[in-house]
């Protein structure tokens, strides 16, 4: 029987490779975390879910779909400040960011809707730059769109996952945001069926870990 | 009664309130532009639901607004030739014709497709699309389509107005045959009194949405009082005559009570009774039997009434041994000849002026 996985869209690529390790046929449906959580709650035929957002996993617990102990962080990621070009920006503050924006905008995921946006906002708030930078944001619907804005030079700065930034030659990482400046970026996974639990072991295997790391993720 | 109509309908600024009975045969609706002819026919066809009224065809109730009965058009089994043709633009001429047959009910009159095509000269048009037809061609296809639908009654709204005289003359005898051979009643709208006089048995004169007069065509056409209504040129009596002889030179001898008539181009068989229309304008009156005239039809008659008009004309009603004739001459001549009721005289009819189209077959 096939194993059906519902996974956050930003995992495509890495997860596809990992799935190839499994002896089973693994079918992966990629999507937004919110949509997937709702679908699982509505009885989606998922054996395993990997979300990009712990909030939605908590919501699934609350719905009684996932037992509280069934979920555990699978991966973590880093947050980076990227730019089209130019010198690195260690430890930027509000003024530095404004100066670098120079009238342009900072691209990131939507502050409430897109997990990467939520983390970016948390970081900006942490460094006390939120109210300064907020009027200069360009919030988009997913991280890749933010990346594209920076890559094309439409936005001088952007905040994206480390895993995304590494693969885009047209952007440079200006600053690797320390993990303590934002909530932990965690991809919680939960098996919903025995088949899912079996695939979970594949996900947690060393071969899988190597693949994830190669794609820029970290292990918790 | 074949068709009985009694309806009332109001448009903004126009009210139709008409009642008439149409016996079997052809009933002509005659009236000026805007008199309500098309409105009336639409009501009969079921395309217009009148405010109130009752329409019956033979023993079928088509409309009875009191009883809330209103048969939909497709169950009325009437063939309607529209004033504006209304061919199906997406179908070829052949398919337009076949549409009529497709939904034809079992009843009604059977007419063969090839007969209809021949008569109307449609053979070269069969593969055409309606928008590639000329005005007259369009109308001919519309007539064909209605004929092929095996209707129980034909409604024809100025079907021949777009046709030339030759084509008209071809089609009229066929319509006559429909009425006699197939017994198909026809409600016929026309403003050509010629056609009406030839075809119709009953005339309904509409004026301003009301029936001005209605009755057998014979009576109405020889009524001097209607001359102004029907139009000076078109008034004229209709009489029945029996065919007694076809001569080699093409003239046919017809017997009427007052004597013999010699007319060209009569198609009926010896022994048949045909209808002859003699337009008032084509009758000359002579006090003495004239000699050496090219007119071969001279009948002894008696003046029954002299009606002087307002203008230069006078309508003279004549009795020809029982048949009513109508003559329209100048008032000056009437005075000069001293015509008055009861006076015997002679009516001269030009043989050729008895229009070809005015000689129709009479009901059996």
């Amino acid at each position, binding site marked *: 029987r096939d194993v059906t996985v519902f996974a956050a869209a930003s995992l495509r*690529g890495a997860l596809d490779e990992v799935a190839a390790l499994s002896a089973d046929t693994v079918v992966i449906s990629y999507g937004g975390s919110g949509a997937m959580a709702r679908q699982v709650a*509505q009885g989606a035929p998922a054996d395993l879910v990997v979300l990009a957002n712990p909030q939605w996993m908590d919501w699934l617990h609350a719905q009684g779909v996932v037992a509280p102990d069934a979920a555990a962080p699978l991966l973590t990621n880093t947050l980076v400040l990227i730019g089209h070009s130019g010198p690195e920006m260690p430890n930027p503050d509000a003024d530095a960011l404004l100066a670098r924006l120079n009238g342009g905008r900072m691209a990131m995921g939507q502050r409430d809707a897109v997990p990467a946006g939520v983390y970016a906002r948390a970081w900006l708030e942490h460094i006390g730059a939120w109210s300064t930078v907020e009027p200069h944001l360009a919030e988009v619907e997913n991280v890749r769109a933010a990346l594209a804005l920076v890559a094309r030079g439409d936005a001088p700065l952007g905040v994206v996952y480390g895993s995304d930034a590494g693969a885009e030659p047209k952007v440079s990482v200006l600053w690797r945001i320390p993990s303590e400046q934002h909530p932990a970026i965690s991809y919680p996974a939960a098996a919903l069926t025995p088949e899912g639990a079996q695939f979970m072991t594949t996900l947690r295997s060393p071969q899988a870990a190597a693949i994830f790391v190669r794609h820029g993720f970290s292990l918790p | 009664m074949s068709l009985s109509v009694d309806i009332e309908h109001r448009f903004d600024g126009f009210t139709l309130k008409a009642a008439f009975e149409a016996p079997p045969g052809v009933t002509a609706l005659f009236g000026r532009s805007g008199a309500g002819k098309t409105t009336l026919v639409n009501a009969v066809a079921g395309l217009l639901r009148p405010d109130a009224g009752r329409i019956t065809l033979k023993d079928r109730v088509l409309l009875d607004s009191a009883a809330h009965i209103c048969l939909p058009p497709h169950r009325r089994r009437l063939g309607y030739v529209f004033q504006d043709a209304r061919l199906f633009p997406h179908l070829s001429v052949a398919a337009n014709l076949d549409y009529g047959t497709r939904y*034809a009910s079992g009843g009604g009159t059977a007419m063969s497709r090839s007969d209809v095509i021949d008569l109307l000269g449609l053979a070269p048009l069969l593969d055409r699309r309606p928008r590639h037809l000329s005005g007259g061609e369009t109308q001919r296809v519309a007539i064909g389509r209605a004929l092929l639908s095996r209707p129980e009654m034909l409604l024809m709204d100025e079907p021949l107005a777009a046709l030339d005289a030759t084509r008209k003359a071809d089609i009229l005898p066929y319509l006559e045959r429909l009425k006699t051979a197939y017994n198909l009643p026809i409600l016929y709208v026309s403003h050509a009194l010629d056609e009406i006089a030839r075809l119709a048995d009953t005339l309904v004169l509409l004026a301003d949405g009301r029936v001005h007069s209605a009755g057998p065509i014979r009576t109405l056409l020889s009524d001097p009082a209607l001359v102004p209504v029907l139009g000076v040129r078109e008034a004229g009596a209709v009489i029945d005559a029996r065919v007694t002889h076809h001569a080699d030179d093409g003239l046919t001898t017809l017997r009427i009570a007052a004597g013999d008539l010699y007319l060209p181009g009569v198609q009926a068989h010896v022994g048949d009774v045909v209808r002859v229309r003699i337009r008032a304008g084509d009758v000359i009156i002579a006090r003495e039997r004239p000699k050496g005239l090219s007119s071969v039809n001279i009948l002894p008659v008696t003046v029954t009434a002299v009606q002087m008009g307002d203008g230069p004309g006078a309508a003279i009603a004549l009795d020809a041994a029982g048949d009513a004739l109508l003559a329209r001459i100048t008032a000056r001549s009437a005075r000069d000849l001293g015509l008055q009721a009861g006076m015997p005289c002679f009516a001269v009819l030009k043989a050729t002026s008895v229009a070809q189209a005015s000689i129709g077959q009479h009901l059996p």
Partner: protein
Amino acid sequence: MDAAGYEALRLSLLVSGTATLLALPLALGCAWLLARRDFWGKDLLSAAIHLPLVLPPVVTGYLLLLAFGRTAPVGRFLEQTLGLVLAFRWTGAVLAAMVMGFPLMVRAMRLAIQAVDPRIEAAAATLGAPRYAVFATITLPLIAPGILAGTVMGFAKALGEFGATITFVAAIPGQTQTLPSAIYSYLQVPGGEARAAQLTLIACAIAVSAVIVSEWLSRRIAARIGAA
């Protein structure tokens, strides 16, 4: 193109084709009602048909999920009575595509029906054709350009639909992952652009072919019915 791409293509064509065919009669009926009838709530029907156009597709998908999910009332009813499962099946993708393409189909057909001269239909009725026959033999051929236009639009929309579909039935490869959702998910990962571009080109090619076929058909229809 890889197997997954083929699979998405096959599924997209299946879903869009089925959705278009299924929606056709329904859309025609609605179009006819809106064009020819006056009834209470007509404006509301019209507004309801337009709604999927106005709402973000994700909302439409969410509403579909709420109504037709496995645990949702209508979804459960359909499963128990007809054995028809929509949630997370290609059938659900069909439903989403139908709903999204519906306003486009209805509008095109409605415009076409409004342009038909009722006097021509009346002529058919006097020739004995009952109402359904008039519709089938006169109205239908005369509105063929509108039906065609509606079909192309509906098919195109179904082919491009993504937000409602992925929200309602997810993007399960071979089941519900259509071309657009494959494109979308490739766009989400580093280095996926090339494959996204490839699939996009395929979607474009299908669309262009569909439009060319429809233009050709539309010329043939115009020649038949004598439109400009």
